[in-house]
């Protein structure tokens, strides 16, 4: 479903080339629950951004759902992100002036989905992520855990191929982090593909496939 071949990404920092990723090969199949771990600067976030089509590799090919997405135009990338990628960020990235339900609705609004269809999906998502009571609250009236649940519901709104979570618990206390993690695991149980970037070995241990990265390369890939 996701196939990265020879992906390299270099940045120019102060006139010097920094190799954030060197020749990374990775295949992710549907329904996997995968964590990417590694120290800061190991390239795990860069890898996630490339999978999420927010960043482009300097070399290599990326196939998403049997389609080469390496050379798409900016607009095509936006469309693929909309249809196939669900992002969950460390800092939630909710639009502060919109209510919870409006934040969840946002990707569907941008995609121009029919309002009746949107209402149906929203009702389902609010139920699934236990947000009915907080639906009309704005982010500043929600707890961190609720914010992240809204963000996950938003990521799921378009029925994406993969959920990409970048330190989803990094901004939450332990208990709330566990709760958010179990929400992501429920997505996985329902057949979703989940990729989590994390520092926390405990979270990594709960996933079914663990990648370790170091200096822009995948150094271990354990399953089970």
């Amino acid at each position: 479903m996701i196939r990265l071949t020879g992906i390299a990404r270099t940045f120019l920092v102060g006139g010097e080339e920094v190799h954030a990723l060197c020749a990374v090969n990775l295949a992710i199949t549907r329904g996997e629950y995968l964590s990417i771990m590694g120290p800061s600067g190991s390239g795990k976030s860069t890898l996630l951004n490339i999978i999420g089509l927010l960043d482009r590799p300097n070399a290599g090919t990326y196939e998403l759902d049997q389609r080469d997405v390496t050379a798409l135009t900016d607009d095509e990338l936006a469309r693929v992100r909309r249809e196939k990628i669900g992002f969950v960020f460390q800092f939630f990235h909710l639009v502060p002036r919109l209510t919870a339900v409006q934040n969840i609705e946002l990707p569907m609004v941008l995609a121009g989905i029919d309002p009746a269809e949107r209402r149906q999906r929203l009702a389902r998502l609010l139920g699934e992520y236990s947000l009915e009571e907080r639906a009309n609250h704005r982010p500043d009236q929600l707890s961190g855990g609720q914010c992240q649940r809204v963000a996950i519901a938003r990521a799921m709104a378009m029925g994406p191929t993969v959920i990409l979570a970048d330190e989803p618990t990094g901004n939450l206390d332990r208990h709330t982090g566990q709760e958010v993690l179990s929400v992501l695991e429920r997505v996985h149980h329902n057949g979703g593909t989940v990729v989590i970037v994390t520092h926390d070995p405990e979270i990594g241990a709960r996933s079914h496939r663990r990648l370790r990265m170091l200096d822009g390369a995948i150094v271990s890939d354990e399953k089970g």
Partner: protein
Amino acid sequence: MRYADFVSFTYASLRAQRLRTALTALGIAVGIAAVILLTSIGEGLHRFVIAEFTQFGTNIISVTPGRVQTHGASLGAVNTVRPLSIDDALALRRAPYVQLSDPVVQGNAEVVHSGKSRRVTLYGVGPDFARALKMRVASGEFLPPDDPRSARAFVVLGSKVARELFGGDNPLGSRIRAGGERYRVVGVMQAKGQVLGFDLDDTVYIPVGRALEMFNRESLQEIHVVYEPTAPLAEVEAGIKRVLIARHGAEDFTVTPQQKMLDVFGTVLDAITFAVAAIGGISLVVGGVGILTILTIGVAERTSEIGLLRAVGSTRRGILLLFLGEAALLAVLGGTAGLLLGWGAALALHLVLPALPVHTPWSYAVLAELVALAVGLAAGVLPARRAALLDPLEALRSE
């Protein structure tokens, strides 16, 4: 994105910053209000001046003695101007399309009746004067159609003169003295009010031949020529000139059609209206700078939101349109408020100063709204472009 969603999303982001939105829109509102108010005054003035002139009808031509020249005559030049005579006026009736021609001479004279006297403007006119200038007689009749060269000594009083000399009594048939001669009152004019500073009610009308003798003048001051309303003006003018040149041997007179004067006034007044609209337009531009500033700040503050919108699938064009939409909506909100503000101010001005003519030309109002929209869009282009060109990844990191 659907159209309705686009509008409500844009509206929601403006609503989120109410004070800021209100102040920015106010900038545009003040500009539009200034344009509306100033053009209302300009247009009111236009209508006022045109109305003052057209109350005498538009199909009228004034013939005056002497030729208007572009350079002054030198000292000692022989005066070759022949007077305009009553016969000239009668001859003009034979010119093509001419319906009426009426000789006019004007002066001041003292009118006396039973011990009361009053100094008034005295017009020596022909019997068609009232008809030519669309003036109405309140009681009695206007001067009868006598031969203008030997008319009977009748007088028609302006309404104010009649009131001052006779009070509530009926002046018809009474005798008064005007300029030392005895006249019989045959009519009283309807009140006409002031026209460009002249009180048309403080006047008396006597036959033109008698007035020329009273003032010891040879020449008429003016001949009013009324032509068929549908006649081609150029031919009417040419006909008048032909008749008078045949009589005078040279073009020593000036023909001024009312229509041409109106055209000149119209052009000048339109230019004034346009100029004041342009002055109002300057404040509109200042309002546009306000939109530019606020939107630039907005883009900087909402960088992270822009990153998110890009991550969940908005294209660069989508972002561009969102911010342009905000700019346009700001301008339209401000424009609508300004329209009401300017219109209200014009109405209030009219109530406070009824003498000041105010008229809101709707074409200018619509034009001002379109200009506001254009200013908003123009002001929005730079910030919207900046937002659209943000790299989604860097925008997301900006928090």
